[in-house]
């Protein structure tokens, strides 16, 4: 009896009884010999297995059996009969595709709403026979096996789990079994938790519309609705959306995240283009859905952006404004700059040899400058400063301002600037207005506002002289501070076109003192004047005249702080010989102001012998002091004053130090009564006397 089994992969078992020892399988053109097979000795049976090359198919095999020699001939007939049976059997066994099914594989499980889920498998190789698939599963914590409740809803090769079969937060262990006639095979176990396989369907009803409200910018209005079967209302499911759009021809999509809202506005669009719009969604924890089908929208050509119009107009306006500013700056640049950054007055002395300064030989430098007895010692300065104490508040202010400057300038009076660069007005210049001023002002109380003096940025307003200060011979000049233009002031340097504030300083005085030889100016204060006086005494008679003049000036400054400064009529430029102008006191009005007349030009460039007073010197006698700061003058024809002056002048020259000033002052004080000279009806005052009285 033969029993043949054909099992993959192409094994053939041959069971025979009585046992056979070997067999040969052959078919056309091939033959396999079993001479080396293992013989399995089964009691009463012989089972022989032989691996067939799998090309043996559908063709008949002829099995020749070699029976044991012991087998009798009588069994040959039986054997051949069984062979035929076997052959038939083999035929069916080795037919194409009739194999057990291949191993399936579950490749995907998805839940669209956390209430149901579906799993899909991939069948293995087909055994050629109709195969049944079944999915079996059990859940975490259960031992009972279940079978898939729904094979249809999900399509072929799927298993759909309905609501009642779906549990969250619980692992499903599932397996697919494929069976056919030949056998079955099982897939690997798959562990699935519905929590982590959530992927919704795409959103529905995507609507896109171009909206153009009247008073606002146009925009694209995109609206959609969530996919069906998702429960958002109870909060079981939470959806987040995302849209994307692009012009038809563009390569990249423009993606916008929309959160949980189901509508969206797009503002920046290209007019006249056709846009593609899509939307998708995802759960709070899970996978993104597929993109919805594309929706097309045509943007109208008049989809203007109002923004651009506004920006263009803004740009044009700002350009115009910039142009205007630039033009204004260009026109008035200098004045604006000086308004913002007033020029710092720097020491600049004409004829100042910087090289000498570098050498450090101050004596040479000073001598070059022509100023002797400079710099004054500190004691001298202190002494000079004393005279700055004044009673009147205004005067104090005036004087204090000057006093402030004096120390700084007094340090190196030789380096002071006789120029107008030092911030003084043109009326400051040594060239006094006396010749050029018209009638005296009725109110001499106007005086320089020191602040005005120190604002060089306003050159036009530094014409602080009255228009009346136009020089006219024979007229009494009145020197007023503040508020009047003095364009008739001859400027000390032709280069200086800006009149300076009317500010006296010693520099002017010094020049006068030095005389036509020129001298560096010193501060115009009592101290300076005194210094000049001392220096004057060294000089010639002409210089003495200058001293007188300055004395007058200082008297003015002292006696009546309201009185205008007496400016030297002419500022002596360094090194040049210009005649000095003197002023003569014409009269003193009730306010104590001195009215001055320009003196005749008597002085010449010739240096006079020092110590020789000019006969033309005139002095006025102070009859009294009013209000502590007003000197009442009386013409005093005493000639002693001349002598007095001469004395002081004589005594001054030997000393080049500040002590001279002290001596001079002392002398003046001693001879106060004599310090009134009168000459030719014109009155001069020796202010030194009165300064001391103030002191």
């Amino acid at each position: 009896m033969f029993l043949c089994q054909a099992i993959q992969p192409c094994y053939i078992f041959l069971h025979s009884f009585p046992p056979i020892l070997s067999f040969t399988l052959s078919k056309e053109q091939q033959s396999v010999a079993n001479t080396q097979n293992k013989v399995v000795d089964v009691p009463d049976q012989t089972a022989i297995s032989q691996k067939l090359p799998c090309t043996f198919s559908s063709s008949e095999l002829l099995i020749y059996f070699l029976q044991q020699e012991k087998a009798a001939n009588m069994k040959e007939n039986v054997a051949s009969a069984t062979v035929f049976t076997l052959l038939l059997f083999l035929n069916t066994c080795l037919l194409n595709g009739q194999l057990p099914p291949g191993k399936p594989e579950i490749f995907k499980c998805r839940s669209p709403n956390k209430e149901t889920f579906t799993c899909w498998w991939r069948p293995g190789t087909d055994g050629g026979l109709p195969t049944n698939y079944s999915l079996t599963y059990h859940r975490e914590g259960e031992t009972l096996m279940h079978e898939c409740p729904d094979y249809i809803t999900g399509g072929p090769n799927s298993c759909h789990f309905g609501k009642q079969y779906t549990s969250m937060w619980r692992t499903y262990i599932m397996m697919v079994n494929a069976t056919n006639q030949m056998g079955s095979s099982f897939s690997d176990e798959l562990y699935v938790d519905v929590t982590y396989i959530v992927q919704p369907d795409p959103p529905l009803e995507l609507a896109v519309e171009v909206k153009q409200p009247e008073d606002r910018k146009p925009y694209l209005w995109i609206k959609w609705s969530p996919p069906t079967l998702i429960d958002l209302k109870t909060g079981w499911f939470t959806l987040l959306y995302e849209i994307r759009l692009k012009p038809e021809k563009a390569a990249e999509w423009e993606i916008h995240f929309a959160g949980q809202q189901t509508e969206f506005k797009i503002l920046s669009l290209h007019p006249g283009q056709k846009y593609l719009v899509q939307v998708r969604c995802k759960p709070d924890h899970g996978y993104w859905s597929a993109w919805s089908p594309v929706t097309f929208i045509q943007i109208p050509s008049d989809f203007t952006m109002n923004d651009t119009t506004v920006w263009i107009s803004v740009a044009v306006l700002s350009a115009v404004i910039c142009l205007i500013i630039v033009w204004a700056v260009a026109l008035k640049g200098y004045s604006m700059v000086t308004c913002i950054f007033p020029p710092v007055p720097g020491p600049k002395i004409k004829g100042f040899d910087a090289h000498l300064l570098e050498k450090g030989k101050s004596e040479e430098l000073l001598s070059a400058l022509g100023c002797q007895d400079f710099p004054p010692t500190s004691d001298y300065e202190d002494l000079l400063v004393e005279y700055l104490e004044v009673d009147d508040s205004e005067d104090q202010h005036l004087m204090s301002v000057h006093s402030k400057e004096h120390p700084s300038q007094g340090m190196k009076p030789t380096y002071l600037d006789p120029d107008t660069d030092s911030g003084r007005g043109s009326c400051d210049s040594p060239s006094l207005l006396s010749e050029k001023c018209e009638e005296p002002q009725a109110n001499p109380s106007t005086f320089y506002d020191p602040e005005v003096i120190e604002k060089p940025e306003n050159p036009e307003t530094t014409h602080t002289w009255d228009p009346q200060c136009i020089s006219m011979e024979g007229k009494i000049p009145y020197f007023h501070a503040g508020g009047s233009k003095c364009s008739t002031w001859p400027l000390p340097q032709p280069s200086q076109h800006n009149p300076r504030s009317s500010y006296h300083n010693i520099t002017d005085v010094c020049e006068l003192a030095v005389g036509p030889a020129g001298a560096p100016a010193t501060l115009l204060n009592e101290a300076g004047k005194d210094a000049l006086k001392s220096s004057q005494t060294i000089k010639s008679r002409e210089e003495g005249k200058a001293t007188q003049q300055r004395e007058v000036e200082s008297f003015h400054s002292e006696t009546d702080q309201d009185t205008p400064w007496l400016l030297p009529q002419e500022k002596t430029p360094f090194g040049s010989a210009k005649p000095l102008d003197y002023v003569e006191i014409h009269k003193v009005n009730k306010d104590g102001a001195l009215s001055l007349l320009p003196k005749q030009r008597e002085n010449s460039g010739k240096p006079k012998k020092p110590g020789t007073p000019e006969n033309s010197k005139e002095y006025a006698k102070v009859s009294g002091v009013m209000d502590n700061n007003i000197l009442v003058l009386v013409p005093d024809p005493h000639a002693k004053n001349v002598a007095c002056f001469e004395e002081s002048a004589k005594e001054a020259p030997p000393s080049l130090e500040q002590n001279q000033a002290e001596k001079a002052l002392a002398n003046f004080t001693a001879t106060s009564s004599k310090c009134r000279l009168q000459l030719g009806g014109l009155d001069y005052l020796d202010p030194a006397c009165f300064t001391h009285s103030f002191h």
Partner: protein
Amino acid sequence: MNIKGSPWKGSLLLLLVSNLLLCHSVAPLPICPGGAARCQVTLGDLFDRAVVLSHYIHNLSSEMFSEFDKRYTHGRGFITKAINSCHTSSLATPEDKEQAQQINQKDFLSLIVSILRSWNEPLYHLVTEVRGMQEAPEAILSKAVEIEEQTKRLLEGMELIVSQVHPETKENEIYPVWSGLPSLQMADEESRLSAYYNLLHCLRRDSHKIDNYLKLLKCRIIHNNNC
């Protein structure tokens, strides 16, 4: 001053009444000044904050699990041993929408609080053990620390919500106890990795549960099932 005089009485009464009225008209503070048990933060704000925290905690847990799996246990079938390994499985938590809608609000809140409380200790030990590892993975450690911190805050917020919604609730301190510490400290690497895998797997699941429950409750309580 005779207080007992009727004009004084009347004015005092008037003052008292006006004070009471003014007090009632004061709007509740938008922010709770720290530490008050009964605070006047609106319930909606409390729920919003709780949902934000729970969402954040689940994101962190998910990332932490993914990193751990990728690095140590991928493809080695640890999932098979993670079945039934969560200490919170003893709690009767709803597993689908219908069950969740059937449970009543008070029990639901207590359930959430229990789950949160039961995770205090495991999180603490997780941080300690990961920190004590040689070559402690920084990404995992930092996330564990953050999760521990945020879970504490969420628990506080939940207790506030409970005190507002159900002020009469007695403090019920019963919660599932975690006893997995010895397995975290085992010498055998395979067992130890399995213990960590289980812990992180359960954490990921429970944080998702809490997040989903809170979103359900928020829509139910604040928006009346009309989110």
